[in-house]
């Protein structure tokens, strides 16, 4: 009985304020879609960091004939010297040697669609030592030891390239968070207004409820649930938008064209949905409740 009464009240309230409810739903959906997206981008960045920092190496490129900064091609003796010096360093975990032929194969794999491929020969590829460090931050040690040594063309930390990408992604996350904060404020203000209008249009009913001794919980619940339902619909829409984003942007576009990056899968996306929904419902219900304390005297 109680439940039926409350739900019929909610139905009346939502229908009466259809336009306002719609505005609430849309703004909640946008705010939460942005929130969810920025959370996901952060997760993507941290998973990429974990994955790539583990894989990245310091590359010591060796001289080819005619390379810039080189007198002549690196000799076997120089190579052996570099290798043994690397093995002596405490920060080095592992050293791989990549020959020109191997570099050529890797290149062919990564850029199989590139038109440049035909013009490159194995002899043009640089030989290199790929050094894996115990702590990737200790790059300077390697650089100091090998930069400028005969036979070494350059020492490169692959982290530099990645960090630029991560910085970009982080900046995007911050921007999304800022827009989200504004959207949340807009959504909350809309909810406050909607509840106020709703309370005003039902002041007859609430007035009578007060007089006959309905508890404040009973009087306020329809309004709070109304907001919570709008919030719920909004957050489900937000989940839909995030899912659509994943499908269109990642699954359809980025994953096939950028095979190097391990993009977040549907499992990670799904994990965020309950969070989005709980936040949407709570945000709406709490702001409705606080509004009622002011506009619905009991």
């Amino acid at each position, binding site marked *: 009985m109680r439940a039926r009464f409350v739900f019929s009240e909610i139905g009346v309230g939502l229908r009466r304020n259809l336009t306002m409810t719609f505005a609430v739903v849309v703004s909640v959906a946008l705010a939460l879609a942005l929130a969810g997206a920025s959370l996901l981008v952060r997760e993507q960045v941290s998973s990429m960091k974990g994955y790539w920092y583990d894989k990245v190496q310091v590359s010591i490129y060796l001289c080819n004939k005619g390379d810039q900064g080189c007198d002549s091609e690196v000799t076997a003796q120089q190579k052996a010297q570099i290798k043994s010096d690397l093995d002596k360093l405490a920060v080095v975990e592992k050293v791989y040697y990549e020959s020109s032929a191997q570099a050529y194969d890797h290149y062919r794999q990564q850029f199989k669609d590139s038109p440049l491929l035909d013009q490159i020969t194995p002899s043009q590829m640089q030989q290199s030592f790929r050094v894996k460090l115990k702590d990737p931050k200790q790059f300077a040690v390697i650089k100091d030891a090998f930069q400028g040594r005969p036979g070494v063309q350059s020492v490169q930390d692959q982290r530099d390239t990645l960090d630029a990408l991560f910085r970009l992604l982080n900046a995007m996350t911050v921007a999304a968070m800022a827009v989200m904060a504004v959207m949340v404020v807009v959504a909350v203000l809309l909810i406050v207004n909607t509840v106020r209008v709703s309370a005003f249009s039902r002041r007859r009913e609430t007035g*009578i409820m007060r007089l006959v001794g309905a508890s404040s919980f009973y*009087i306020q619940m329809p309004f709070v649930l109304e907001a919570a339902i709008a919030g719920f619909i909004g957050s489900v829409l937000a989940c839909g938008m995030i899912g659509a984003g994943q499908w269109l942007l990642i699954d359809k576009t980025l994953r096939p064209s950028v095979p190097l990056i391990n993009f977040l899968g549907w499992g990670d996306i799904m994990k965020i949905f309950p969070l989005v929904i709980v936040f949407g419902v709570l945000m709406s219900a709490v702001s409705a409740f606080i509004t009622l304390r002011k506009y619905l005297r009991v």
Partner: protein
Amino acid sequence: MIRFDNVSKTYPKQPRPALNDLSLEIERGEFVFLVGASGSGKSTFLRLVLREERSSNGAVHVLGKDLGRLSNWKVPPLRRQIGTVFQDFRLLPNKTVGQNVAFALEVIGKPTGVIRKTVPEVLDLVGLSGKQNRMPNELSGGEQQRVAIARAFVNRPKVLIADEPTGNLDPQTSVGIMKLLDRINRTGTTVLMSTHDQAIVDQMRRRVLELSEGNLVRDQQRGVYGYGQ
């Protein structure tokens, strides 16, 4: 039932108190008229009994509770024992007569079975049997007030407060309403009614409290409306 001990009420930004040092007691089962000019403090008096306002000074006791010390969440249970009727009926225009009365029970969480049984009984009592499915705007003013009384009485309150219940009705209809209130009073319900209707007060010969500018100027058993009559 209702006791005022040196009660004063001053509204903010108003120099003169709306009620000034009122002391009185209303016993169980009494029928009391509250008379006085507009602005004499009748409404404030009723609002204090309903705990819509708190007194500025002194203690208001209703049904054994000191309203000044009653915490907010205990106010609804108190109001369930007080029925209220207004000059403007305050019915819900989009609900039928039966639904209007049932509403008062629904919102305090009474089970459906009880509601189905009680509503026709009380409509019968107020003389509206058979009009359960009519809309309020199809009824005359007197009938609408009967619906309001049914709604106020359906939960069998110990006190019925009527704020000028005949103010919008013609004399003949008013008599009918007064008979109904009298009948409710005879069931043991204390009735407290504010009114401007001289004829009714003179006819009923019940206790009269007269307020003037916030002071209790008369408390008379079997009284009449004006002085010296």
